[in-house]
Protein backbone atom coordinates (compact mmCIF):
# COMPACT_ATOMS: atom_id res chain seq x y z
CA UNK A 1 0.00 0.00 0.00
CA UNK A 2 1.27 3.38 -0.91
CA UNK A 3 2.01 5.79 1.89
CA UNK A 4 2.06 8.81 -0.41
CA UNK A 5 0.35 11.79 1.10
CA UNK A 6 0.46 10.52 4.66
CA UNK A 7 2.02 12.08 7.72
CA UNK A 8 2.74 10.02 10.78
CA UNK A 9 4.25 11.42 13.94
CA UNK A 10 4.85 9.83 17.24
CA UNK A 11 6.00 11.58 20.40
CA UNK A 12 7.65 14.49 18.63
CA UNK A 13 9.58 16.79 20.91
CA UNK A 14 11.15 20.09 20.06
CA UNK A 15 12.62 22.82 22.18
CA UNK A 16 14.28 26.15 21.48
CA UNK A 17 16.87 26.43 24.22
CA UNK A 18 15.10 25.99 27.55
CA UNK A 19 11.66 26.53 26.02
CA UNK A 20 9.81 23.39 25.02
CA UNK A 21 7.61 24.14 22.04
CA UNK A 22 6.41 20.66 21.13
CA UNK A 23 5.74 18.00 23.72
CA UNK A 24 5.03 14.42 22.68
CA UNK A 25 3.00 15.29 19.62
CA UNK A 26 1.25 12.44 17.83
CA UNK A 27 -0.16 12.83 14.36
CA UNK A 28 -1.78 10.47 11.92
CA UNK A 29 -2.90 12.13 8.73
CA UNK A 30 -4.10 9.96 5.91
CA UNK A 31 -3.83 10.51 2.18
CA UNK A 32 -6.27 13.18 1.03
CA UNK A 33 -7.11 14.23 4.56
CA UNK A 34 -7.61 17.89 5.37
CA UNK A 35 -6.34 18.64 8.86
CA UNK A 36 -6.68 22.02 10.48
CA UNK A 37 -4.51 23.02 13.41
CA UNK A 38 -5.87 25.75 15.65
CA UNK A 39 -4.70 27.28 18.88
CA UNK A 40 -3.44 30.50 20.46
CA UNK A 41 -0.20 32.04 19.24
CA UNK A 42 2.88 30.47 20.73
CA UNK A 43 1.11 27.14 21.05
CA UNK A 44 3.62 25.44 18.71
CA UNK A 45 1.28 24.93 15.77
CA UNK A 46 3.52 26.73 13.28
CA UNK A 47 6.58 24.93 14.59
CA UNK A 48 4.86 21.59 14.10
CA UNK A 49 4.09 22.53 10.50
CA UNK A 50 7.64 23.70 9.90
CA UNK A 51 8.97 20.39 11.18
CA UNK A 52 6.93 18.50 8.59
CA UNK A 53 8.67 20.55 5.91
CA UNK A 54 12.16 20.40 7.43
CA UNK A 55 12.39 24.12 8.15
CA UNK A 56 12.87 23.00 11.73
CA UNK A 57 14.24 19.69 12.92
CA UNK A 58 12.61 17.70 15.67
CA UNK A 59 14.67 16.81 18.73
CA UNK A 60 13.20 13.37 19.21
CA UNK A 61 10.31 11.21 18.15
CA UNK A 62 9.27 9.60 14.92
CA UNK A 63 8.27 11.69 11.92
CA UNK A 64 7.31 9.93 8.73
CA UNK A 65 6.19 11.96 5.73
CA UNK A 66 4.97 10.12 2.64
CA UNK A 67 5.93 6.95 4.52
CA UNK A 68 9.63 7.82 4.86
CA UNK A 69 11.51 9.08 7.90
CA UNK A 70 11.75 12.80 7.21
CA UNK A 71 15.19 14.42 7.04
CA UNK A 72 16.85 11.44 8.74
CA UNK A 73 17.51 7.77 8.16
CA UNK A 74 17.18 5.27 10.95
CA UNK A 75 19.89 2.90 12.11
CA UNK A 76 19.92 0.58 15.07
CA UNK A 77 21.06 3.23 17.53
CA UNK A 78 20.17 6.61 16.08
CA UNK A 79 18.61 8.77 13.43
CA UNK A 80 21.25 10.21 11.09
CA UNK A 81 20.67 13.44 9.18
CA UNK A 82 20.21 12.99 5.44
CA UNK A 83 22.46 14.72 2.92
CA UNK A 84 21.14 18.11 1.69
CA UNK A 85 20.35 16.51 -1.66
CA UNK A 86 18.17 13.78 -0.19
CA UNK A 87 16.48 16.23 2.17
CA UNK A 88 15.74 18.55 -0.78
CA UNK A 89 14.21 15.63 -2.65
CA UNK A 90 11.90 14.89 0.29
CA UNK A 91 11.01 18.56 0.55
CA UNK A 92 9.94 18.77 -3.08
CA UNK A 93 7.13 16.37 -2.18
CA UNK A 94 5.79 18.71 0.52
CA UNK A 95 4.55 22.13 -0.55
CA UNK A 96 4.61 25.01 1.89
CA UNK A 97 2.57 28.21 1.83
CA UNK A 98 3.71 30.95 4.17
CA UNK A 99 1.86 33.64 6.06
CA UNK A 100 4.00 36.31 4.37
CA UNK A 101 3.73 34.67 0.90
CA UNK A 102 7.53 34.86 0.40
CA UNK A 103 7.34 35.16 -3.35
CA UNK A 104 10.69 35.94 -4.94
CA UNK A 105 10.42 39.69 -5.65
CA UNK A 106 13.00 39.52 -8.44
CA UNK A 107 10.87 37.15 -10.51
CA UNK A 108 7.51 37.60 -12.22
CA UNK A 109 4.51 35.57 -11.06
CA UNK A 110 5.16 33.07 -13.85
CA UNK A 111 8.87 32.84 -13.06
CA UNK A 112 7.99 32.27 -9.42
CA UNK A 113 5.73 29.38 -10.35
CA UNK A 114 8.34 28.02 -12.75
CA UNK A 115 11.21 28.39 -10.28
CA UNK A 116 10.73 25.01 -8.60
CA UNK A 117 10.40 22.84 -11.71
CA UNK A 118 13.07 24.67 -13.73
CA UNK A 119 15.69 25.34 -11.06
CA UNK A 120 15.24 22.28 -8.88
CA UNK A 121 13.80 19.58 -11.11
CA UNK A 122 15.61 20.83 -14.23
CA UNK A 123 12.37 20.58 -16.16
CA UNK A 124 12.04 21.89 -19.70
CA UNK A 125 11.45 25.64 -19.68
CA UNK A 126 8.70 25.70 -22.29
CA UNK A 127 6.81 22.86 -20.65
CA UNK A 128 7.15 24.54 -17.25
CA UNK A 129 5.93 27.86 -18.60
CA UNK A 130 2.87 26.13 -20.05
CA UNK A 131 2.19 24.35 -16.80
CA UNK A 132 2.77 27.57 -14.84
CA UNK A 133 0.15 29.25 -17.00
CA UNK A 134 -2.32 26.45 -16.28
CA UNK A 135 -1.64 26.71 -12.55
CA UNK A 136 -1.99 30.50 -12.55
CA UNK A 137 -5.27 30.13 -14.41
CA UNK A 138 -6.45 27.58 -11.87
CA UNK A 139 -5.90 30.09 -9.06
CA UNK A 140 -7.65 32.77 -11.10
CA UNK A 141 -4.53 34.69 -12.14
CA UNK A 142 -4.10 33.62 -15.75
CA UNK A 143 -3.67 37.21 -16.88
CA UNK A 144 -1.14 38.14 -14.21
CA UNK A 145 1.81 35.98 -15.23
CA UNK A 146 4.03 38.90 -16.19
CA UNK A 147 3.41 40.91 -13.04
CA UNK A 148 6.02 41.17 -10.34
CA UNK A 149 4.95 40.39 -6.76
CA UNK A 150 5.19 44.08 -5.81
CA UNK A 151 2.48 44.77 -8.39
CA UNK A 152 0.05 42.23 -6.94
CA UNK A 153 -2.29 42.48 -3.97
CA UNK A 154 -1.71 40.29 -0.93
CA UNK A 155 -4.45 37.88 -1.93
CA UNK A 156 -3.05 37.61 -5.44
CA UNK A 157 0.46 37.05 -4.12
CA UNK A 158 -0.75 34.29 -1.85
CA UNK A 159 -2.51 32.59 -4.74
CA UNK A 160 0.69 32.77 -6.79
CA UNK A 161 2.52 31.26 -3.82
CA UNK A 162 0.03 28.38 -3.78
CA UNK A 163 0.55 27.87 -7.51
CA UNK A 164 4.32 27.92 -6.97
CA UNK A 165 4.06 25.13 -4.41
CA UNK A 166 1.68 23.13 -6.60
CA UNK A 167 4.11 23.33 -9.51
CA UNK A 168 6.35 20.85 -7.73
CA UNK A 169 3.50 18.30 -7.74
CA UNK A 170 3.66 17.69 -3.99
CA UNK A 171 1.64 14.96 -2.31
CA UNK A 172 1.16 17.15 0.74
CA UNK A 173 0.48 20.88 1.07
CA UNK A 174 1.19 22.75 4.27
CA UNK A 175 -0.40 26.15 4.94
CA UNK A 176 1.02 28.32 7.70
CA UNK A 177 -1.69 30.89 8.52
CA UNK A 178 -2.16 31.60 4.81
CA UNK A 179 -4.76 34.33 5.30
CA UNK A 180 -3.49 36.03 8.45
CA UNK A 181 -1.53 38.72 6.60
CA UNK A 182 -4.38 39.56 4.23
CA UNK A 183 -6.95 42.31 4.12
CA UNK A 184 -10.25 40.87 5.37
CA UNK A 185 -11.80 41.25 1.91
CA UNK A 186 -8.99 39.26 0.27
CA UNK A 187 -9.26 36.27 2.59
CA UNK A 188 -12.10 34.72 0.63
CA UNK A 189 -10.25 34.46 -2.66
CA UNK A 190 -7.42 32.50 -1.05
CA UNK A 191 -9.79 30.22 0.86
CA UNK A 192 -11.68 29.50 -2.36
CA UNK A 193 -8.48 28.30 -4.01
CA UNK A 194 -7.74 26.13 -0.97
CA UNK A 195 -11.22 24.63 -1.04
CA UNK A 196 -10.78 23.74 -4.73
CA UNK A 197 -7.51 22.06 -3.83
CA UNK A 198 -9.16 20.12 -1.02
CA UNK A 199 -11.80 18.81 -3.44
CA UNK A 200 -9.04 17.41 -5.65
CA UNK A 201 -7.89 15.10 -2.87
CA UNK A 202 -4.67 16.80 -1.83
CA UNK A 203 -3.46 16.06 1.67
CA UNK A 204 -3.53 19.40 3.45
CA UNK A 205 -2.39 20.56 6.85
CA UNK A 206 -3.62 24.05 7.57
CA UNK A 207 -2.65 26.21 10.52
CA UNK A 208 -5.45 28.76 10.61
CA UNK A 209 -7.65 31.08 12.57
CA UNK A 210 -10.45 30.72 10.00
CA UNK A 211 -12.93 28.60 11.92
CA UNK A 212 -15.41 28.82 9.09
CA UNK A 213 -12.91 27.21 6.74
CA UNK A 214 -12.16 24.51 9.30
CA UNK A 215 -15.82 23.74 9.77
CA UNK A 216 -16.57 23.64 6.06
CA UNK A 217 -13.53 21.87 4.66
CA UNK A 218 -11.52 20.09 7.34
CA UNK A 219 -11.81 16.40 8.08
CA UNK A 220 -9.87 16.46 11.31
CA UNK A 221 -9.00 19.21 13.75
CA UNK A 222 -6.19 19.62 16.23
CA UNK A 223 -6.34 22.09 19.04
CA UNK A 224 -2.89 22.90 20.40
CA UNK A 225 -1.88 24.86 23.45
CA UNK A 226 1.57 25.25 25.02
CA UNK A 227 3.13 22.62 22.81
CA UNK A 228 0.56 19.95 23.55
CA UNK A 229 -2.27 18.60 21.45
CA UNK A 230 -5.14 19.35 23.83
CA UNK A 231 -7.92 17.96 21.72
CA UNK A 232 -8.24 16.24 18.38
CA UNK A 233 -11.00 14.66 16.39
CA UNK A 234 -13.54 15.20 13.68
CA UNK A 235 -13.45 18.90 12.77
CA UNK A 236 -17.16 19.65 13.00
CA UNK A 237 -17.50 17.56 16.15
CA UNK A 238 -14.68 19.36 17.97
CA UNK A 239 -15.91 22.77 16.88
CA UNK A 240 -19.49 22.05 17.90
CA UNK A 241 -18.90 20.07 21.11
CA UNK A 242 -15.41 20.63 22.46
CA UNK A 243 -14.71 18.26 25.35
CA UNK A 244 -11.74 19.91 26.99
CA UNK A 245 -12.33 23.09 28.98
CA UNK A 246 -9.25 24.75 27.39
CA UNK A 247 -10.71 24.15 23.93
CA UNK A 248 -14.08 25.44 25.07
CA UNK A 249 -12.67 28.71 26.37
CA UNK A 250 -10.54 29.21 23.23
CA UNK A 251 -13.43 28.58 20.87
CA UNK A 252 -15.69 30.84 22.89
CA UNK A 253 -13.24 33.68 22.31
CA UNK A 254 -12.65 33.20 18.59
CA UNK A 255 -16.09 32.18 17.37
Amino acid at each position, binding site marked *: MSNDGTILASRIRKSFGPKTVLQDIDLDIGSGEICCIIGPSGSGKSTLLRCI*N*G*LETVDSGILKVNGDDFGYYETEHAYHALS*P*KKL*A*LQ*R*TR*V*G*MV*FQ*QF*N*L*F*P*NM*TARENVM*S*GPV*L*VKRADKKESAKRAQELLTSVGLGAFGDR*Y*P*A*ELSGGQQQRV*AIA*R*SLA*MDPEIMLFDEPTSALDPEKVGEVLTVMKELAKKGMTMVVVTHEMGFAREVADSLLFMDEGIVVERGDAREVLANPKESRTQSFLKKVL
Partner: protein
Amino acid sequence: MTTVINKGSKAGAGSIDATLKPRLRLRTPAEYTAWIIAILVAAGILASVLTNPNFKWDIVGKYFTHESILRGLMLTIFLTVASMAMGTLLGLGLAIMRSSKIKPVALAAGAYVTLFRGTPVLVQLIFWFNISALYPNLYIGIPFTDIGTAIDTNALMGPITAALVGLSLNEAAYMAEIIRGGFSAVGKGQIEAADSLGMSGAMKMRKVIIPQAMPSIIPATGNQVIGMFKETSLVSVLGVAELLQSAQLIYARTFDTIPLLIVASIWYLIMTLLLSYPQSRLEQKYSHTSVRVPRKSKKVVLTAPEGIAR
Protein backbone atom coordinates in the same frame (compact mmCIF):
# COMPACT_ATOMS: atom_id res chain seq x y z
CA MET B 1 -26.87 72.27 15.90
CA THR B 2 -24.57 73.24 13.06
CA THR B 3 -21.15 74.72 13.16
CA VAL B 4 -19.95 76.98 10.42
CA ILE B 5 -16.27 76.77 9.68
CA ASN B 6 -15.01 80.22 8.89
CA LYS B 7 -12.77 79.56 5.91
CA GLY B 8 -11.52 82.88 4.72
CA SER B 9 -11.21 85.62 7.27
CA LYS B 10 -10.20 88.53 5.11
CA ALA B 11 -7.67 90.82 6.73
CA GLY B 12 -8.40 93.71 4.46
CA ALA B 13 -9.37 94.73 0.99
CA GLY B 14 -7.00 93.62 -1.75
CA SER B 15 -5.24 90.91 0.31
CA ILE B 16 -5.23 87.33 -0.88
CA ASP B 17 -7.73 84.77 0.29
CA ALA B 18 -6.40 83.44 3.61
CA THR B 19 -6.72 79.87 2.40
CA LEU B 20 -4.31 80.58 -0.44
CA LYS B 21 -1.62 82.48 1.46
CA PRO B 22 1.85 80.88 1.31
CA ARG B 23 3.28 79.57 4.54
CA LEU B 24 6.74 80.93 5.17
CA ARG B 25 9.62 79.21 6.88
CA LEU B 26 10.98 80.60 10.14
CA ARG B 27 14.28 82.41 9.62
CA THR B 28 16.18 82.89 12.86
CA PRO B 29 18.86 85.50 13.57
CA ALA B 30 21.28 82.54 13.88
CA GLU B 31 20.72 81.75 10.22
CA TYR B 32 21.45 85.29 9.07
CA THR B 33 24.55 85.41 11.29
CA ALA B 34 25.78 82.09 9.91
CA TRP B 35 25.38 83.38 6.36
CA ILE B 36 27.37 86.52 7.09
CA ILE B 37 30.20 84.62 8.79
CA ALA B 38 30.35 82.00 6.06
CA ILE B 39 30.52 84.63 3.33
CA LEU B 40 33.25 86.56 5.15
CA VAL B 41 35.36 83.43 5.67
CA ALA B 42 34.91 82.36 2.05
CA ALA B 43 35.90 85.81 0.81
CA GLY B 44 38.98 85.76 3.04
CA ILE B 45 40.11 82.38 1.79
CA LEU B 46 39.48 83.30 -1.83
CA ALA B 47 41.42 86.56 -1.49
CA SER B 48 44.34 84.74 0.10
CA VAL B 49 44.38 82.01 -2.56
CA LEU B 50 44.30 84.55 -5.38
CA THR B 51 46.81 87.05 -3.97
CA ASN B 52 49.42 84.78 -2.36
CA PRO B 53 52.09 84.39 -5.04
CA ASN B 54 53.37 81.15 -3.48
CA PHE B 55 50.41 79.27 -4.94
CA LYS B 56 52.02 79.84 -8.34
CA TRP B 57 48.83 79.35 -10.35
CA ASP B 58 50.78 79.74 -13.60
CA ILE B 59 52.78 76.62 -12.71
CA VAL B 60 49.59 74.77 -11.77
CA GLY B 61 48.26 75.63 -15.23
CA LYS B 62 51.48 74.61 -16.91
CA TYR B 63 51.62 71.15 -15.34
CA PHE B 64 47.89 70.47 -15.20
CA THR B 65 47.91 68.64 -18.52
CA HIS B 66 51.60 67.71 -18.45
CA GLU B 67 52.27 64.39 -20.12
CA SER B 68 53.61 62.60 -17.03
CA ILE B 69 50.72 63.87 -14.90
CA LEU B 70 48.23 62.49 -17.42
CA ARG B 71 50.14 59.22 -17.56
CA GLY B 72 49.99 59.08 -13.77
CA LEU B 73 46.26 59.74 -13.89
CA MET B 74 45.81 56.86 -16.32
CA LEU B 75 47.75 54.55 -14.03
CA THR B 76 45.63 55.68 -11.07
CA ILE B 77 42.46 54.90 -13.02
CA PHE B 78 43.87 51.52 -14.04
CA LEU B 79 44.81 50.66 -10.46
CA THR B 80 41.35 51.68 -9.24
CA VAL B 81 39.48 49.63 -11.84
CA ALA B 82 41.72 46.58 -11.60
CA SER B 83 41.90 46.38 -7.82
CA MET B 84 38.18 47.05 -7.45
CA ALA B 85 37.37 44.30 -9.95
CA MET B 86 39.65 41.78 -8.28
CA GLY B 87 38.65 42.91 -4.80
CA THR B 88 34.93 42.55 -5.57
CA LEU B 89 35.32 39.06 -7.04
CA LEU B 90 37.45 37.93 -4.13
CA GLY B 91 35.11 39.66 -1.69
CA LEU B 92 32.12 37.82 -3.16
CA GLY B 93 33.95 34.55 -2.66
CA LEU B 94 34.80 35.49 0.92
CA ALA B 95 31.21 36.56 1.65
CA ILE B 96 29.89 33.24 0.36
CA MET B 97 32.51 31.40 2.41
CA ARG B 98 31.60 33.42 5.48
CA SER B 99 27.95 32.47 5.28
CA SER B 100 28.84 28.82 4.77
CA LYS B 101 27.44 26.26 7.17
CA ILE B 102 30.79 24.48 7.19
CA LYS B 103 32.55 25.95 10.21
CA PRO B 104 36.22 25.93 9.05
CA VAL B 105 35.28 27.61 5.78
CA ALA B 106 33.37 30.38 7.55
CA LEU B 107 36.13 30.76 10.13
CA ALA B 108 38.84 31.02 7.47
CA ALA B 109 36.95 33.80 5.70
CA GLY B 110 36.35 35.53 9.04
CA ALA B 111 40.06 35.36 9.87
CA TYR B 112 40.95 36.83 6.48
CA VAL B 113 38.58 39.75 6.95
CA THR B 114 39.84 40.42 10.48
CA LEU B 115 43.47 40.36 9.37
CA PHE B 116 43.07 42.57 6.32
CA ARG B 117 40.74 45.07 7.90
CA GLY B 118 42.69 45.17 11.12
CA THR B 119 45.99 46.29 9.63
CA PRO B 120 46.64 49.53 7.70
CA VAL B 121 46.63 49.36 3.90
CA LEU B 122 49.91 51.22 3.81
CA VAL B 123 51.56 48.51 5.92
CA GLN B 124 50.02 45.82 3.72
CA LEU B 125 51.32 47.49 0.56
CA ILE B 126 54.87 47.70 1.90
CA PHE B 127 54.57 44.13 3.14
CA TRP B 128 53.66 42.75 -0.30
CA PHE B 129 56.40 44.82 -1.89
CA ASN B 130 58.91 43.17 0.43
CA ILE B 131 57.42 39.69 0.37
CA SER B 132 60.64 38.35 -1.21
CA ALA B 133 62.33 38.80 2.17
CA LEU B 134 59.93 36.18 3.49
CA TYR B 135 59.77 33.86 0.48
CA PRO B 136 62.76 34.50 -1.81
CA ASN B 137 61.57 31.92 -4.32
CA LEU B 138 58.07 30.99 -5.35
CA TYR B 139 57.94 27.36 -6.31
CA ILE B 140 55.08 26.40 -8.57
CA GLY B 141 54.58 22.72 -9.10
CA ILE B 142 52.77 19.59 -8.12
CA PRO B 143 53.32 18.70 -4.46
CA PHE B 144 55.44 15.61 -3.70
CA THR B 145 56.81 15.46 -7.26
CA ASP B 146 59.77 17.00 -9.07
CA ILE B 147 57.59 18.72 -11.62
CA GLY B 148 57.53 22.50 -11.33
CA THR B 149 59.57 25.65 -11.61
CA ALA B 150 60.92 28.18 -9.18
CA ILE B 151 60.26 31.88 -9.74
CA ASP B 152 62.25 34.68 -8.19
CA THR B 153 59.73 36.48 -5.99
CA ASN B 154 61.59 39.75 -6.33
CA ALA B 155 61.21 39.70 -10.10
CA LEU B 156 57.55 38.75 -9.85
CA MET B 157 56.59 41.31 -7.23
CA GLY B 158 57.40 44.59 -8.97
CA PRO B 159 55.93 47.83 -7.63
CA ILE B 160 52.78 47.71 -9.75
CA THR B 161 52.14 44.04 -8.99
CA ALA B 162 52.63 44.68 -5.28
CA ALA B 163 50.26 47.66 -5.52
CA LEU B 164 47.61 45.57 -7.27
CA VAL B 165 47.97 42.65 -4.87
CA GLY B 166 47.94 44.90 -1.80
CA LEU B 167 44.97 47.00 -2.86
CA SER B 168 42.94 44.04 -4.13
CA LEU B 169 43.46 41.87 -1.08
CA ASN B 170 42.61 44.74 1.23
CA GLU B 171 39.57 45.75 -0.79
CA ALA B 172 38.38 42.13 -0.81
CA ALA B 173 38.03 42.23 2.98
CA TYR B 174 35.87 45.34 2.84
CA MET B 175 33.80 44.09 -0.10
CA ALA B 176 33.27 40.79 1.71
CA GLU B 177 31.67 42.69 4.58
CA ILE B 178 29.53 44.80 2.25
CA ILE B 179 28.33 41.75 0.34
CA ARG B 180 27.68 39.80 3.51
CA GLY B 181 25.67 42.74 4.80
CA GLY B 182 23.65 42.59 1.58
CA PHE B 183 23.07 38.86 2.06
CA SER B 184 21.76 39.37 5.56
CA ALA B 185 19.35 42.03 4.27
CA VAL B 186 17.54 39.28 2.35
CA GLY B 187 14.57 38.17 4.39
CA LYS B 188 14.55 34.86 6.21
CA GLY B 189 11.25 34.04 4.54
CA GLN B 190 12.89 34.16 1.12
CA ILE B 191 15.43 31.57 2.16
CA GLU B 192 12.72 29.41 3.70
CA ALA B 193 10.68 29.63 0.50
CA ALA B 194 13.71 28.54 -1.52
CA ASP B 195 14.38 25.74 0.98
CA SER B 196 10.82 24.51 0.86
CA LEU B 197 11.08 24.23 -2.93
CA GLY B 198 14.15 22.07 -2.41
CA MET B 199 16.71 24.48 -3.85
CA SER B 200 20.35 23.64 -3.29
CA GLY B 201 22.67 26.06 -1.51
CA ALA B 202 24.35 27.29 -4.70
CA MET B 203 21.03 27.70 -6.48
CA LYS B 204 19.60 29.66 -3.57
CA MET B 205 22.64 31.93 -3.62
CA ARG B 206 22.47 32.54 -7.39
CA LYS B 207 18.75 32.90 -7.94
CA VAL B 208 17.38 34.20 -4.66
CA ILE B 209 19.99 35.74 -2.37
CA ILE B 210 22.39 37.56 -4.72
CA PRO B 211 19.72 39.20 -6.93
CA GLN B 212 17.95 40.52 -3.84
CA ALA B 213 21.15 41.61 -2.11
CA MET B 214 22.21 43.73 -5.09
CA PRO B 215 20.19 46.85 -4.15
CA SER B 216 22.16 47.21 -0.93
CA ILE B 217 25.49 46.07 -2.37
CA ILE B 218 25.68 48.27 -5.46
CA PRO B 219 25.52 51.74 -3.84
CA ALA B 220 28.03 50.68 -1.19
CA THR B 221 30.34 49.40 -3.91
CA GLY B 222 30.10 52.78 -5.64
CA ASN B 223 31.35 54.39 -2.45
CA GLN B 224 34.22 51.92 -2.34
CA VAL B 225 35.21 52.86 -5.92
CA ILE B 226 35.44 56.52 -4.93
CA GLY B 227 37.40 55.58 -1.82
CA MET B 228 39.71 53.33 -3.79
CA PHE B 229 40.43 56.11 -6.27
CA LYS B 230 41.94 58.18 -3.48
CA GLU B 231 43.47 55.18 -1.73
CA THR B 232 45.66 54.48 -4.77
CA SER B 233 47.74 57.52 -3.80
CA LEU B 234 49.22 55.33 -1.07
CA VAL B 235 51.05 53.18 -3.60
CA SER B 236 53.28 56.17 -4.34
CA VAL B 237 55.43 54.89 -1.46
CA LEU B 238 56.26 51.85 -3.60
CA GLY B 239 57.52 54.12 -6.37
CA VAL B 240 54.59 53.42 -8.65
CA ALA B 241 54.25 56.43 -10.94
CA GLU B 242 50.56 57.04 -10.37
CA LEU B 243 49.08 60.51 -10.11
CA LEU B 244 50.63 61.56 -6.79
CA GLN B 245 54.02 59.99 -7.51
CA SER B 246 54.09 61.70 -10.93
CA ALA B 247 53.53 65.04 -9.21
CA GLN B 248 56.18 64.22 -6.62
CA LEU B 249 58.72 63.30 -9.31
CA ILE B 250 58.23 66.69 -10.93
CA TYR B 251 58.50 68.78 -7.78
CA ALA B 252 61.55 66.81 -6.71
CA ARG B 253 63.23 68.45 -9.70
CA THR B 254 61.58 71.88 -9.72
CA PHE B 255 60.81 72.37 -6.00
CA ASP B 256 57.28 73.55 -6.92
CA THR B 257 55.82 71.34 -4.21
CA ILE B 258 52.56 73.17 -3.53
CA PRO B 259 51.56 73.86 -7.15
CA LEU B 260 52.06 70.23 -8.12
CA LEU B 261 50.16 68.95 -5.12
CA ILE B 262 47.36 71.27 -6.20
CA VAL B 263 47.52 69.79 -9.70
CA ALA B 264 47.16 66.28 -8.26
CA SER B 265 44.42 67.38 -5.87
CA ILE B 266 42.39 69.00 -8.64
CA TRP B 267 42.57 65.80 -10.67
CA TYR B 268 41.51 63.70 -7.68
CA LEU B 269 38.65 66.12 -7.08
CA ILE B 270 37.52 66.07 -10.72
CA MET B 271 37.53 62.29 -10.84
CA THR B 272 35.72 61.98 -7.50
CA LEU B 273 33.04 64.41 -8.65
CA LEU B 274 32.68 62.55 -11.94
CA LEU B 275 32.23 59.29 -10.02
CA SER B 276 29.87 60.88 -7.51
CA TYR B 277 27.19 61.57 -10.10
CA PRO B 278 26.57 57.95 -11.15
CA GLN B 279 27.00 57.00 -7.50
CA SER B 280 24.20 59.27 -6.32
CA ARG B 281 22.01 58.03 -9.16
CA LEU B 282 22.64 54.47 -8.07
CA GLU B 283 21.82 55.34 -4.49
CA GLN B 284 18.57 57.02 -5.49
CA LYS B 285 17.63 54.07 -7.65
CA TYR B 286 18.17 51.55 -4.90
CA SER B 287 17.39 53.47 -1.74
CA HIS B 288 13.59 53.52 -1.80
CA THR B 289 12.75 50.04 -2.89
CA SER B 290 13.76 47.08 -0.88
CA VAL B 291 11.78 45.20 -3.46
CA ARG B 292 13.03 45.65 -6.99
CA VAL B 293 10.54 47.35 -9.20
CA PRO B 294 10.99 45.83 -12.63
CA ARG B 295 12.66 48.04 -15.19
CA LYS B 296 10.05 47.70 -17.87
CA SER B 297 6.98 48.09 -15.74
CA LYS B 298 5.15 51.31 -15.25
CA LYS B 299 5.58 53.10 -11.96
CA VAL B 300 2.75 52.26 -9.65
CA VAL B 301 1.53 55.44 -8.06
CA LEU B 302 -0.22 54.89 -4.78
CA THR B 303 -2.85 57.47 -4.05
CA ALA B 304 -4.99 57.57 -0.97
CA PRO B 305 -8.69 57.53 -1.66
CA GLU B 306 -10.31 60.86 -1.02
CA GLY B 307 -11.48 61.50 2.47
CA ILE B 308 -8.92 59.25 4.11
CA ALA B 309 -6.58 61.05 6.43
CA ARG B 310 -2.94 60.15 6.07
